[in-house]
């Protein structure tokens, strides 16, 4: 086996040094009744070429192949990925390194993560961003737990129903064994969160909103922050599509205290939903309560700039059960990927690309409205919910045959929105495909 360098002669030499005669004697501490009875039931060893063939077969079982047009985002977005990204991220000095515990020989990772923290903080409008969480969903759960720690005595958080349903599921999972309660906030007819019930909720530590929300609608976070802060609660602002902040106000500038969301849009492929990137940031005064790793700038013996992991006293390996979280490894290389993407786009590029996404989505919305469809009234970015004048399921099926995944039916997530579809249009969506869908709607 090519990954195993041991020859029979090597094995004998090593066993002689150790003083054993065979592999059996190498495991004297493993009791007989703890052992496998027989060989593990696994496929036989495959050559490289057999693995290629096997994987090709699995890929061929995907009716919607790589060439399909997927007009669905809902937390996983199709954006162009420049060639420099796979080329640079596959450099094995980044890819095959561990967490940078020995900073002198990991300055590449450490400077890369410091740059990630910086560009992410600028993007989200927060003072500090951490070195990442697993994904947008667990980042939201951790954001709410952090808010409860900051509030000290309060026991409740409110989460908008316009937050991604899967994210709300993950929050529920994290909260079930705790003493804390999650209250859901309804959404209005225009697609924004209805905050009118907020003042009736006592003991509230935080309110979680997502913007753009699951319906693609931009929440008025600024107005929400005023109401929430008046109730002495924190605004936890989530997102699934950070490209929106290339064009629209970011959560931090609108008063969000903790910002957490999914960064997959930034140079990371969809890959059936993972690995993505949990982005997480907050105001400066909360940093010691923040979960996750942090990289800080310092100097070496000779006064030269360098970077190290820092504020580890918040973390599990030092504070044990009193840690701010159990998170240890996070999304490492994906922080570098996202930074490469932000750097390649630049300030000018992100504005232009965000505008293109907005315009294309607006184009489709307009054409659908002309065809008799109804949309949420509040403004959005590159996703939107469509209520068709008739039944769309037949058209949806017909379009799938043409390799077009025309929107996500919402009944499974919101029974009251049964028959409505959530669409996503990005720079990768050809105008011809949009026109083709509209044509099918008009039939």
């Amino acid at each position, binding site marked *: *086996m090519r990954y195993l360098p041991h020859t029979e002669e090597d094995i004998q030499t090593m066993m002689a040094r*150790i*003083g054993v005669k065979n592999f059996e004697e*190498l*495991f004297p*501490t*493993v009791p007989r009744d*703890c052992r*496998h009875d027989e060989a*593990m039931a*696994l*496929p036989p*060893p495959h050559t*490289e070429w*057999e*693995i*290629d063939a*096997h994987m090709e077969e699995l*890929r061929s079982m995907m*009716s919607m192949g*790589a060439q399909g047009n*997927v007009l669905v985002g809902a937390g*996983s977005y199709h954006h*162009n990925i420049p060639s420099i990204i796979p080329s*640079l991220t596959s*450099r094995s000095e980044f890819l*095959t390194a561990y*967490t*940078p*515990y020995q*900073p002198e020989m990991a300055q*590449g990772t450490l*400077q*890369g993560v410091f*740059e990630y923290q*910086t*560009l992410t903080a600028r993007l989200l409008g927060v003072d500090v*961003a951490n070195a990442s969480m*697993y994904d947008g969903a*667990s980042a939201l759960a951790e954001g709410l737990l952090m808010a409860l720690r900051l509030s000290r005595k309060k026991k409740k958080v409110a989460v908008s129903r316009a937050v991604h349903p*899967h*994210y709300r599921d*993950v929050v529920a*999972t994290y909260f*079930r*064994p705790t003493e804390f309660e999650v209250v859901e906030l309804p959404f209005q007819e225009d697609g924004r969160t209805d905050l009118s019930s907020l003042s009736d909720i006592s003991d509230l530590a935080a309110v979680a909103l997502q913007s753009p929300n699951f319906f693609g609608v931009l929440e008025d976070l600024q107005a929400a922050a005023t109401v929430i802060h008046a109730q002495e609660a924190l605004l936890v602002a989530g997102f699934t599509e950070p490209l929106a902040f290339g064009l629209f106000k970011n959560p931090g500038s609108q008063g969000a205290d903790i910002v957490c969301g999914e960064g997959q849009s930034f140079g990371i492929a*969809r*890959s*059936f939903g*993972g*690995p993505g990137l949990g982005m997480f940031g907050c105001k400066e005064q909360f940093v010691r309560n923040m979960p996750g790793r942090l990289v800080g700038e*310092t100097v070496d013996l000779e006064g030269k700039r*360098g970077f*190290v992991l*820092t504020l580890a006293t918040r973390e599990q390996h030092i*504070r044990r059960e009193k840690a701010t979280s159990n998170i240890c490894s996070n999304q*490492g290389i994906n922080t570098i990927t996202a930074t490469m993407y932000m*750097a390649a786009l630049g300030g000018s590029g992100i504005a232009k*690309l965000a505008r293109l996404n907005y315009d*294309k989505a607006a184009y489709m919305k307009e054409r659908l409205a002309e065809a008799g469809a109804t949309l949420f009234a509040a403004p959005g970015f590159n996703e939107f919910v469509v209520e068709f004048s008739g039944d769309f399921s037949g058209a949806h099926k017909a379009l799938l045959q043409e390799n077009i995944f025309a929107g996500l039916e919402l009944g499974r997530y919101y029974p009251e929105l049964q028959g409505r579809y959530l669409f996503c249009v990005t720079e990768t969506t050809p105008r011809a495909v949009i026109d083709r869908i509209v044509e099918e709607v008009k039939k």
Partner: protein
Amino acid sequence: MKNAPGDSGLILKEPLLWEKGKKGRNGMSIPESDVPAASLPEDLLGEGPDFPDLSEIDVVRHYTRLSQWNFGVDTGMYPLGSCTMKYNPKINEKQAAAPGITAAHPLLPEEQCQGMLKLMYELQNHLAAITGMDAVSLQPAAGAHGELAGMLVFAAYHRSRNSTRTKILIPDTAHGTNPASAALCGYRPVKVVSGRRGILEASDIKDLMDEETAGIMITNPNTLGLFEENIREIAALVHEKGGLVYCDGANMNAIMGIVDLKKCGVDVLHLNLHKTFSTPHGGGGPGAGPVCVTAELEKFLPVPRVAYDGDAYVLQYDRPDSIGRVHAFFGNFGVLVRAYSYILAMGAENLKKASQYAVLNACYVKESLKGYLHLPYNRPCMHEVVFTDKLQQDKKVSTLDMAKRLMDCGYHPPTIYFPLVVSGAIMIEPTESECLEDLDVFIEVFKNVVKEADEKPDLLRASPTRFKVRRLDETQAARNPCLRG
């Protein structure tokens, strides 16, 4: 040391991203718009983030230079204990990067994504076969996330039996994340001190285990690299009081094809695909931490479950006892693809050999370095061995000094100051990837470092000197945090 791989090289300077570039440059092509410009909601418009504008070559050189300041498994030996820095096969990367995989949207209708579901279903079965456990969920995104999922299963199990439990037993040789994972589920960790042999003694568990205790979290092999020989007896004691046994499987690389965890009495186990199953660590992720359970606990696993109904691969959501979702979608799918590719390449026989060779390598290092370094537990070790700096203390040379000197010699140092049960720990895990000649050079270099500790201690205290930076001031970094530019 003339044989040591460390030599000098050309190091290029590279500023921070925003210290270079010029407004108006760009490093990524953006399509021209093929639709009319739409009107914008003025009140919501932002200024856009303050990112530097760079050209493509600016970005490429930046990251190429940064990468050259790093050290990976592909660079050289990385004997970082408990991290299993084995070779990360290139073909795994190729599979994960195949367009049919990268383009797969996680909310495709089931009939559209049978290939991806089949891969997950088979990987679940393979991991079950390797561990001996009955059912597997691939959803947790990292080892600590797997621990959390496992603890949530504990909590759900006890809730289903109307049993309120507030404590959990955690040995001093368990992994560092265990107490925090248990605390997230409301359990108060109770420390179990390991016995004189470096392993748990059943009598101590008998004294501590009661009906307020949810169970025990054991790392096996433990962080001293020792197999918990009494695990079956301990498991029986825990089960007797209605508790469950969690095994942190981070050290699975020592026991593939050898130990059947279910037969050990384990109820819940997590694996680290980025350790045992060769997926790259990426400088701190992404990993994957599948959680494996007995048939009795399967109903508590996260939703959706990936199953096969005899005709097609399906996603099961309607599972009322489930702990719920722990990830937005199916976990770190790209990492799962790599581990699947690795298991296919290896097969049962080679996975077993990998564990045997990993243990052989660690025992060889142990036999070769004992006497030069203090060996606190001179017992048969598994895939890693723990030494200390006790013999170097009279020269006031510490574990840290030796680690930094090893760097100048061209090695990533072992894990240092962990586990906490021994002072000045040096935890060496060579993995099966290292050949005999390379191990011999490493051993010779380490012996020489020990000699230098005696003869030239200042050389060690001044190390490292061959990197872009010298020792860094971590105290200042924590005292006056500068976390962004």
